[in-house]
């Protein structure tokens, strides 16, 4: 699988965030998008996911437009419903995305197995973040788009994230992550926004 970002342009209100942005990623690659606040990291992730149409440019995978069935998006917000249990939240994501992998496996990998029957509203911010990340494991999708994945995560959580990302890359998946913090993705390419042109 080869991801090609070609000449992407993004405008927010009257401001041009970036213009003519291009980069590529092969199977097994990781791309880390960095930049100051307001530089457009989240906008870029959402553009690639197809949630907003670009002002210009295209997101191409193996010569065809990126299909939403090929990607996972873990955005800024956790998409966790407080009134449902951890298990129910994950089961919903699994059913929605047509996933085949058991929820228990995903919860194990993110260290949430003990909390599975609890209502999600009692979880801490870091635990909710892990629950959001668990979504990545219930359905197999080649491209992972992550927006500030380590927000609120403690050292253990960050290690688990690094582990699942490494496993995904080993299976020829691609990861594009926008972040402020340092991410433990060995051999990752950096795309810097809001500074010198790409």
């Amino acid at each position, binding site marked *: 699988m080869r991801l090609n970002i070609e*000449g992407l*342009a993004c405008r927010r*209100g*009257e*401001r*041009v965030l970036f*213009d*003519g942005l291009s980069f590529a990623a092969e199977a097994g690659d990781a791309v880390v998008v960095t930049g100051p606040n307001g530089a457009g990291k989240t906008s870029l992730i959402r553009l690639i996911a197809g949630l907003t149409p670009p002002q*210009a*440019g295209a997101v191409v995978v193996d010569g065809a437009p990126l299909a939403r069935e090929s990607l996972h998006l873990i955005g800024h917000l956790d998409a966790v419903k407080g009134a449902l249990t951890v298990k129910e939240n994950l089961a919903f994501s699994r059913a929605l995305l047509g996933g085949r992998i058991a929820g228990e496996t995903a919860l194990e990998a993110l260290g949430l197995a003990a909390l599975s029957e609890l209502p999600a509203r009692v979880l801490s911010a870091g635990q909710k973040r892990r629950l959001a990340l668990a979504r990545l494991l219930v359905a197999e999708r080649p491209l992972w788009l992550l927006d500030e994945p380590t927000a609120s995560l403690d050292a253990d959580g960050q290690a688990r994230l690094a582990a699942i990302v490494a496993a995904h890359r080993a299976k020829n998946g691609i990861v594009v992550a926008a972040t402020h913090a340092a991410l433990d993705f060995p051999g990752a390419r950096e795309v810097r926004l809001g500074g010198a042109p790409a």
Partner: protein
Amino acid sequence: MPIRDLANPHRFLALARALVPAFAILAALLLGLGLVLGFRAPADYQQGETVRIMYVHVPAAWIALGTWVLMAASALGTLVWRHPLADVSAKAAAPIGAAFCLLCLVTGALWGRPMWGAYWVWDARLTSVLVLFLLYLGVLALWRAIDDPDRAARAAAVLTLVGLVNIPIIKFSVDWWSTLHQPASVFRLGGSTIHPALLTPLLVMALGFAALFLALYLAAMRNEILRRRVRTAHILAAARAER
């Protein structure tokens, strides 16, 4: 390929500067002529002098309906082509259309009292025009409630298109349901049924109203464009201050 700038409506502003006074003068002339003709036209044998309210009520209704259709066309421009002038057009037209709709309802009520004995009846025509007025208010509220002008334009555009279904209902309500309101007598497939002595002042007033609408509409569009320029200038000033 660099990003294109926001469509610069220089040409439109130049056009508006010329057209607004032209339409205003035309409106004044036509309305003046229309009123003179209206008062010189024969009174109705049943209704007497009050039939003359028709010369304000009917054109106001036509403008109110036509404005919603104009807004719907602008809505398509916003949603399909994302053209900024479409946003401006929709936002400028809405309050004017609402005002003409209100004028239609009020003059209708004033006419209804002597003619039917009631200021208001809940028949299909009146109810659907009242629904149109409520839709106008909804669109105006939506424009004010959303800060970002692009988002507001898109939300208003969807509501406008959904509300478009009301227009044919208004037009055909007097044919589909038995109503107190008079059936279609001008725009109908067989030609109009109004006597020319009454039709002429009516059409003159309608043209006058249309000219008035265009003058107000173009002026409002110009104001909105200028308002957006001020807003952009403010935003840029704030951004520059940050650096």
